[in-house]
């Protein structure tokens, strides 16, 4: 057997900054697309250690695990450490919920700085003021011509999740927007 394959993210090695914002590729993470109805939530709670948030645009966090409300029966679970979530879900089976691993489908860009909202609003049509998109808020939305999942991690900090092959575009877009914001 030859050596074990190593993980390489699509944005590895990039970074960018202006006076207003910095862009950094997020570290590799484990991600699950969690789908469940009312009757599956208990199982999800058991595995995650907390209940998936029920309110639109909201998220819940415990330890290394973030659970983002995406839709009424859909959550994006991001685990910064490898807590073995896929295996735990696999053990529970698919009768009440669906947990599909998408760790590699998505990649993320961390956007930080005083101009973060302006930069995002160059391509994202949502209202990102703190009143309407407070810290902890998250939403699937649009950035320019790409779909993203936006997650506000701080007053001036966002995590921008996107599909792997869109990440080059999203990165370039944010760079272009950062320069002119």
């Amino acid at each position: 057997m030859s050596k074990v394959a190593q993980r390489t993210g699509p944005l590895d090695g990039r970074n960018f900054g202006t006076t207003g914002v910095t862009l950094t590729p997020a570290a590799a993470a484990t991600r699950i697309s969690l789908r469940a109805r009312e009757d599956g939530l208990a199982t999800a709670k058991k595995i995650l250690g907390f209940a998936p948030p029920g309110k639109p645009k909201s998220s819940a966090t415990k330890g290394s695990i973030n659970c983002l409300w995406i839709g009424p029966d859909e959550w994006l679970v991001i685990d910064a450490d490898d807590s073995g979530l896929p295996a735990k879900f696999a053990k529970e089976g698919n009768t009440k919920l669906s947990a599909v691993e998408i760790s590699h489908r998505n990649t993320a860009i961390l956007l930080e700085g005083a101009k973060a909202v302006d930069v995002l609003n160059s391509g994202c049509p949502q209202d990102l003021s703190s009143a309407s998109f407070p810290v902890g808020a998250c939403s699937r939305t649009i950035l320019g011509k790409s779909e993203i999942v936006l997650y506000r991690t701080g007053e001036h900090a966002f995590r921008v999740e996107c599909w792997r092959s869109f990440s080059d575009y999203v990165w370039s877009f944010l760079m272009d927007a950062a320069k002119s914001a």
Partner: protein
Amino acid sequence: MSFSVNTGANRIAGKGRLSPSKTVTFTLDGRQLNAMEGDTLASAMLANGIHLAGRSFKYHRPRGILGAGAEEPSALMDISRDNARRQPNVRATVQEVFDGMKAKTQNHYPSLTFDVGAVNNWFSPFFSAGFYYKTFMWPKQAWKNLYEPFIREAAGLGKAPEEADPDHYANRYAHCDLLIVGGGASGLMAAKTAAKSGKRIILADESASMGGWLLAESEATIGGRPAGEWVTETVAELAAMENVTLLPRTTAFGYYAHNMVALAERVTDHRSRPDPDLPRERLWQVRAKKVILATGAIERHLVFADNDRPGIMLASAARMYLNHYGVAVGRNVGIYTACDSAWAAAFDLQNAGVKVTAIIDMRAAPDPDLVEKAREMGIPVRTGSAVTKTAGKMRIRSMTVEPIADPLSEKFEIDCLLVSGGWTPSVHLFSQSRGKLKFDEENGRFVPDIHVEDCASIGSCNGTDDMDTALAEAVAAATAAVSGRAVKAPKTSGFASMRGHLIGSAKGAGPDDHVMAFIDFQNDVCAKDVRLAVREGMHSIEHVKRYTTTGMATDQGKMSNMHGLAIAAEALGKEIPAVGLTTFRAPYTPVTFGAIVNHSKGDLFDVTRRTPMHSWAEEHGAVFEDVGNWKRAWYFPRAGEDMHAAVARECKTTREAAGIFDASTLGKIEVVGPDAVKFMELMYTNPWQKLAVGMCRYGIMCREDGFIYDDGVVGRISEDRFHVTTTTGGAPRVLNMMEDYLQTEFPEWKVWLTSTSEQWAVIGVQGPKAREIVEPLVEGIDLSLEAMPHMAIREGKICGVPTRLMRVSFTGELGFEINVPADYGRAVWDAIWERGEPLGMAPYGTEAMHVMRAEKGFIIVGQDTDGTVTPQDAGVGWAVGKKKADFVGIRGLTRPDLVAEGRRQLIGLRTKDPKVVLEEGAQIVADPNQPVPMKMLGFVTSSYWSETLGHSIALALVEGGFGRKGDTLYVPMENETIAVEVCDTIFLDKEGARLNV
């Protein structure tokens, strides 16, 4: 008076708000001129005594500067920084001068003062409205070769840029509680009032300085302080507030549904050396909870004979030039008006030391106070009189004045004539918001009536002339918009009255006169053109507009539309409201394509999707093709190889040893849940109940109409989990269609769909040596034929990472599709390559893949099918479950035409000459000698040279094709006819011997 010669002989020292210490230099038609920072090109020209600004569109008449803002129809210039940064048709009244700016006048040859195009002026009697519809028809060919080129050359104003634009542009989606458009007295007052609430407020004004007409006032006060100071203080106060975004140089150009207003901000066009990171312009797409429109009013000119000479301008503009820019527009100025506000211009000019030759007011009895004041100042006044003629070639020299009731005339020498026909409220945005207007008979204007969006109109744009009332309106609207507490508006004094108006033609330009009395300066439309249009039956104002082109120029008739309307109404014998206005459309003033495109230039024009192995392909010299947003490796040419040679080699290597192929772009959907199989039964034509766990099946998806929508291999991972693949391009629409059925037709079914297209990188290894290459890297999966037959799917590990390994083949060879989590894709690929290369493996691209699948008769949806092909037509009717009670497409498939005889069916073709490769898309006929139009039986969908078989192969959709096996048909090309024989679609290894090893 004292003139400060440095920035122009007509600059009055001590007048205006610009700072004399800051001067800039620019050129006009190559001539170097000085200006003050803050000057517009127009004010800078006027300071230098220049009125002549260009030639008109149709008659090439000399034209001057008419206005002082966005309404300007005449002074359009070509402005550049350098060759690539050149902008035609810029309004000199809006463009701020910057150091090094190059301005050029337009639409003349060889020069502005001597223009051969001016012969058109002589022929103007022929160029009546719509003349080109009436002639240029004989001889027929002359239209294309003579007339049209001539007309085209004569038309147009400036010259389009020829080089790619090096500037960049930006976009901002913004949200606010209140958007205020217009930073004049009303807008500023509204902002000041609303800002206190702490709510998010955006205030945009198209000018460089906020203040609107306050900047033109000389003696006005607000709250006891000079109006200019009030503006400065208010702007400073607003600028300091965090909840307020102040946007000068920003035009609100479009009011769209649901309170979205689009703004264009000019970021660098006024700067000498802009920071290269700054965008040239920024588009703002503002979603406002409430909008206050405070867009003011625009002054109208007067329609009389030869009213277009350089030196004739709007009275309000002259006032703005004087009081804001410190520029005297002439030294010997006449006034011709129907409105009080022009009197203020006369008084200001006279006070500044400019000689006002006479005030001609067409009203019999204008405000006695004004008349009295003029008398006191020694300005001659003629009331109840009109200017009936002007003289002067490149600049006005004199005016002839007649009492309206009386033909006695007197002549005044002047170098400038200020006109005012009263004010037109700027209801453009209001109208775009689909608000309804009403006609204010008394003041001859349309004003907002019913608001449709959540907005309010205040101040001049609402027809409110009196400043106290305007400010009270502002306070009330702002308070309501932010649900604030009512406050009192400040008291004002000293504002010029805006009473009095004329719409339509003035004396001497009436129905029986044949003079050139311009309505629309830019498109050279005269009063008589409108009358002609009406005479010819153009009785809708929309017809009048289109027949005469009035209001269709770059100013969209801001000054002229009311005149056109009034003249049309008169000619029609109708009331103005019964004739109606033409539609106001975005943009309010022209907006660059760049601002609208903003970030979507170059690489950001569209998303470019690349697979995890893209870099490897690049390193190995791949040529890529675009498939949707994806870049896919098309073929891998080696030194000296063209596409044909490379593809032939790739096929050969794969069939003889092995090939490696990046299939990552395939769409993938994970279908999970207790009802997964039921769902698959619905979505695909195939039966799925009996598909064993660990096995795959080729599936076909139709739309309800029975036509093939997509296809792909589906693997059953467990009883309740399917790994579904789709075509590359079809991935999003397939998932969308599945979600649609699931959510809206069968919401009670327990099954969930997740896109995993990008979770998995897919590496195809195909060819006799495939197993040998892959086997040593795999853990926990037995790859032997017995343990893992064709169409099996297994989970395990490869290179130490998880894999879903499918034994499938699109080439007809022994093959594996190795799904690995995408971030491992490149590493696993590298490992396979490391093993495979010494064994003779080569990478192949999509073209070789297409050839090999065609040799096996496998279809490509979208190439061998279009939206009119059923599974039966495509020869995959076996994939339609005969015993199924339902699936999407089941009913569509049985419609009369879909079961009729003579449908086009997919068959194989072999050219009689094996070396000839048919062209894809070539049409097929039975009788090549029939006359055109020929009866076409079908067409070639796929066609390739098969290196393996040593002859060309093709697939085709042919009428009744299944019944034509062995027939000879013909493919008529432009210069030859190719004979072909209909054959089976499977050209290679019918029995599948190569597969089952």
